């Protein structure tokens, strides 16, 4: 019997097979750190008088707590300032490479790795952050870990792990216009539920996945954790190789050839068997938006706010009723009629250059809805520079959006970018939990296309809604 891609990656990083029920010891190729989950891990090393085993396989950036305004001034919030200074001190003491606020390579850790070319196929990648699954888009086994495990990797460059189960997510057909990778993953989560992936590594396959760009594949893998999965994977192909080639840390010469030769073997064998398998038809997809307070509570935008009374399962019915109460929504309201106060474009899910381009393309020459603000936060300082070189900053500013510095920003309520109580957002981020974007804030997860169209109309919208509106007004003008 053949093996799956996840199993191949596991086997290729097996330092030691566990005996008598003990876990396997797995080698870690890359460990990324940020300011929030690393301080106690470094402290643990200090207390035990242990060094970082492989500083040359470790990298740190500042992202969760950093402000996206006035980054040249001292950080106002004391807790954030202490955490960031602690990371800087630890990096210095232990010889770890760090990209600090103001550095051209600073940004959300999951955007920085791929753009530097230190994320590539065939690796094991960890970080004290659940969205590490992003890097699975390259055909690497990438997952989030806790603080004790951060310390364990710093000290040993390995982790004791029990094997995962494997699940194939087959996305057939072609995505319709106006739908994106974000809609695929929101539809997957709505289908299998927020716990549906528990214990599994998900491998996304099929024609619709193959035709996605690397940025789009990262969006899909990023939200694997929202289905409860340990990791998400996509087999590497020419799209992957082309993305990696020429980046600062990409292999060169003979190393590149050897790497590509190996990477081409990183596919699930024809006769391999997954522990579970689901199928999704891409051509059936519409832009998806969430209406509730977990990422599985999503619907196509043409739908209406569901009525909890229609839900058969008691636990789900109760969850839906609680979610609607928190979100301030009435059953039966068409999703398109929901007014949005703030549009957030950014995060490790949708803060890459392609996301900014797609949104800019829609708003160009249009005017922002007066009662809606739009925050555009590049995923990294390099993304910001690239966008500025392409003139996208001008497009956003002319539209009336705010153009910020890089960071996690409004994805999570840990820095100054937060929703006020009852403020409603359309957000390209990954979690719509209660209070995630600020205490009492109400989040609708959307794609960058829906985010842009929503900023134009002020209610949840798709780009097609704008075309319809402009042709209507043209007709009106003629009449």
């Amino acid at each position: 019997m053949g093996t799956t891609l996840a199993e191949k990656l596991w086997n290729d990083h097996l330092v030691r097979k566990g005996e008598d029920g003990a876990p396997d010891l797995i080698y870690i190729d890359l460990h990324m750190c940020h300011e929030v989950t690393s301080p106690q891990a470094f402290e643990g090393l200090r207390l035990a008088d242990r060094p970082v085993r492989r500083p040359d396989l470790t990298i740190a950036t500042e992202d969760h707590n950093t402000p996206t305004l006035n980054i040249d001034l001292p950080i106002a919030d004391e807790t954030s300032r202490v955490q960031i200074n602690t990371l800087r001190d630890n990096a210095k003491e232990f010889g770890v490479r760090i990209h600090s606020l103001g550095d051209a390579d600073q940004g959300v850790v999951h955007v920085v790795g791929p753009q530097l070319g230190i994320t590539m196929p065939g690796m094991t990648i960890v970080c004290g952050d659940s969205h590490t699954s992003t890097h699975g888009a390259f055909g690497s086994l990438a997952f989030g870990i806790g603080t004790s495990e951060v310390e364990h990797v710093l000290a040993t460059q390995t982790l004791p792990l029990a094997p995962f189960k494997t699940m194939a997510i087959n996305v057939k057909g072609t995505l319709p216009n106006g739908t994106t990778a974000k809609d695929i993953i929101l539809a997957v989560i709505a289908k299998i539920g927020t716990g549906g992936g528990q214990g599994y590594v998900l491998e996304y396959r099929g024609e619709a996945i193959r035709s996605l760009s690397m940025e789009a594949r990262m969006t899909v893998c990023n939200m694997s954790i929202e289905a409860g999965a340990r990791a998400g994977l996509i087999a590497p192909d020419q799209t992957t190789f082309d993305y990696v080639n020429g980046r600062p840390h990409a292999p060169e010469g003979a190393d590149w050839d050897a790497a590509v030769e190996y990477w081409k073997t990183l596919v699930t064998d024809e006769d391999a068997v997954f522990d579970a398998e689901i199928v999704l038809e891409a051509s059936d997809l519409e832009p998806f938006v969430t209406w509730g307070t977990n990422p599985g509570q999503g619907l196509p935008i043409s739908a209406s706010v569901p009525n909890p009374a229609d839900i058969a399962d008691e636990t789900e019915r109760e969850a839906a009723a609680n979610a609607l109460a928190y979100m301030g929504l009435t059953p039966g309201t068409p999703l398109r009629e929901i007014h949005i106060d703030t549009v957030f474009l950014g995060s490790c899910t949708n803060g890459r250059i392609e996301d900014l381009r797609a949104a800019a393309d829609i708003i160009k020459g249009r005017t922002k809805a007066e009662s809606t603000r739009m925050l555009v936060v590049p995923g990294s300082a390099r993304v910001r520079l690239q966008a500025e070189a392409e003139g996208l900053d001008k497009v956003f500013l002319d539209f009336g959006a705010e153009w910020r510095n890089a960071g996690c920003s409004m994805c999570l309520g840990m820095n100054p970018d937060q929703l006020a109580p009852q403020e409603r957002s359309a957000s390209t981020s990954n979690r719509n939990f209660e209070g995630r974007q600020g205490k009492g804030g109400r989040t609708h997860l959307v794609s960058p296309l829906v985010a842009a169209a929503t900023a134009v109309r002020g209610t949840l919208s798709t780009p097609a809604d704008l075309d319809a509106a402009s042709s209507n007004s043209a007709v009106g003008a003629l009449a």
Partner: protein
Amino acid sequence: MEKFTTHTGVGVPLRRSNVDTDQIIPAVYLKRVTKTGFEDALFAAWRGDPDFVLNQEEYKHGSVLVAGPDFGTGSSREHAVWALKDYGFKVVLATRFADIFRGNSGKQGLLTGIISQESIELLWKLIETEPGKEITVSLEDRTVTCGELTVPFEIDDYVRWRLMEGLDDIGLTLQHEEDITAFEATRESWRPKTLPAKTEPKQHIEAARPVA
């Protein structure tokens, strides 16, 4: 991690069930950057109550916590274990522990012994009748002794072995350091290294300003 064979210390009765990790350490204390110094955060919400057991002179320096069932439920925060350890606890005894809490305890050298409710009641009676009375916990014999009373407790064999050897997960892994070094020798040269750092040319990043 220190090797654990036996421990003798003052027994502290905690007559509550379902003590979750939010009660052990409230979220507000999670913003700290240290792994030690959480002693003041332990049971923070209860410490203001003069009647709380740890506010009584005889129990103040206790190190063996005798708790009600389902201790350590809720959030996975490792800070709960750090807080108990920092306060001075070496052992927690209860009829049931939450899985994650028990796992975290094993990693940090805090012994969580599973004991019958009948034994818990007997221990409570002894340490409440005679506050400050010491309890001896023998990991080797898997027994708890308080005065004339000796009762057994249960603990996972693998965890017991690790505690007795004084091995944390990292220490355990480093026993196989030769395997790690041997594996590293086989790693292909294309695999990326973060050092020496390579980047595109450094550029100045303009600070964004608030919109007026």
